């Protein structure tokens, strides 16, 4: 039993899924950080009082960088710049082993200067060290390109445990969110009004609250779907197991496989988060979660999808040429 457990966490797989997560997470985080510069709020968010609201800079103990450089708006800006540069290098996969940990450090220190954030900040602080310890820089990266140029063989496999942890973490986020939705509005007693209510919240609604009344029934369906989706998150592991073991599960297993329940569950998640991104102004959260979604896709599935897309593209180009 123990040996099987040890062997499970020792599994290896092609690095493409983790690399895709690296790129998407990096792009999402980079865009979020750059917005701070576009809106000119870097000192306002991370600078110490009274110049900014980064009260963590004057806390005891202060973040490491503040202890070294002192509390100032410049320290906040420097940390932000370190995060942006390391995030860009992380995304491109340049010296991945180093830059990924520099990004982890920068994000922790930024969080120390300004501890007010939302759940995606907490989630990224948990998952970035996992990504940094993974082989996510093995392909689709500058490191891989240099390795190839030097005539070294590419990494065909990397440890799979980081991807497994990403999946477990995402499932836990859904489970935790699902069973804590105690407000009536998430259930039939409140008429499944929750999402419709958020769209009426002046701080979160992307469109003028009350202007999309005709869509209200769809928001009720969205609320119901959200609850079903989140509370059924633990079953994802059952759907996955049944897919990986074609002969198991009897008639129920056959139905699950034939109906592609696992993929329906994933598509529901993508649709819900896309809906949130489209209709609510909550920034990084839906994009950050969607950036992690490739972790649900096993590398052979991703490679098969890419091969299919490539062949379709080539076919189309050939038709055009003809």
């Amino acid at each position, binding site marked *: 039993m123990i040996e099987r457990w040890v062997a499970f966490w020792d599994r290896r797989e092609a690095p493409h899924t983790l690399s895709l997560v690296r790129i998407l997470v990096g792009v999402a985080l980079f865009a979020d950080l750059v917005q701070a510069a576009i*809106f*000119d709020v870097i000192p306002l968010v991370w600078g110490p009082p009274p110049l900014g609201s980064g*009260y963590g800079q004057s806390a005891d103990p202060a973040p490491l960088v503040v202890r070294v450089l002192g509390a100032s708006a410049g320290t906040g800006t420097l940390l932000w710049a370190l995060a942006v540069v390391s995030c860009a290098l992380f995304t491109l996969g340049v010296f991945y082993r180093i830059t990924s940990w520099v990004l982890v450090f920068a994000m922790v220190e930024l969080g120390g200067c300004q501890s007010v954030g939302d759940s995606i900040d907490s989630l990224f602080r948990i998952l970035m060290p996992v990504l940094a310890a993974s082989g996510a820089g093995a392909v689709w990266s500058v490191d891989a390109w240099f390795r190839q140029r030097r005539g070294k063989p590419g990494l065909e496999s990397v440890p799979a445990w980081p991807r497994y*942890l990403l999946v477990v973490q995402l499932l836990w986020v859904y489970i*935790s*969110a699902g069973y804590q939705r105690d407000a009536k509005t998430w259930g039939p007693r409140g008429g499944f*009004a929750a999402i419709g209510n958020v769209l009426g919240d002046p701080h979160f609604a992307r469109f*003028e609250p009350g*202007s999309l009344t005709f869509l209200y029934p769809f928001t009720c369906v969205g609320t119901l779907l959200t609850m079903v989706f989140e509370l059924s998150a633990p079953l994802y592991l059952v759907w996955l197991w049944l897919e990986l073991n074609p002969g198991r599960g009897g008639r129920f297993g056959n139905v699950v496989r034939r109906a592609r329940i696992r993929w329906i569950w994933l598509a529901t998640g993508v649709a819900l988060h896309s809906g949130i991104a489209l209709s609510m102004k909550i*920034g990084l959260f839906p994009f950050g979660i969607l950036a992690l979604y490739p972790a649900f896709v096993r590398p052979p599935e991703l490679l098969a999808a890419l091969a299919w897309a490539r062949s379709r593209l080539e076919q189309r180009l050939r038709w055009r040429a003809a």
Partner: protein
Amino acid sequence: MRADWRTVRAFGITLVLALGFVAGWPNRIAKLVAPWPKPLAELALKLPALKESILAPFAPVAGRLGIYSEDWPLFAGTGGRRYRLWLEARGRGGRGFTLLYRAHDPDHRYFAGALEYRRILNIYNPHHDWISDAYPDFTTALARRIFREQRRFQEVRLRLEEVTILSDGRGYAPTGRFAYERLVRRAELER
């Protein structure tokens, strides 16, 4: 040697998963178990203390990584009382305040991009019955910036209008009440 490393790693991952599970026990447990039978609810209410004692030895390491919880109460409650930010400023004459920004008001969009940026929004958007610790410093820093850009203003006021979310997706209705009001005077900052 390799087998040893594999075992250590599997043990480490198992420990992380177990600690993550404990850290995920809900902080809002009192509210969640209120409708439960009393003996069961009393048992559940012992969880937070148990959780704290289990996590205590690992808290310094988690704290260094900025990891504090695995509890995710996302949009747990919606509707009811919500808020709408008003940013106002007043000149030397002491007459009425000029409205600079108000959420979802196309005519008052001063600094709107920044105020709607999620890292700023999280500072001033009240969560149920509390507002972030950064809010007072934020109002001062924002006022400082407005005074620098607009010489005519002597006072800056931030306040959150309480609104009620209407049923059937009809938006919200103002209540006329304000909360979390902060007034910052130029003279205080230049002292």
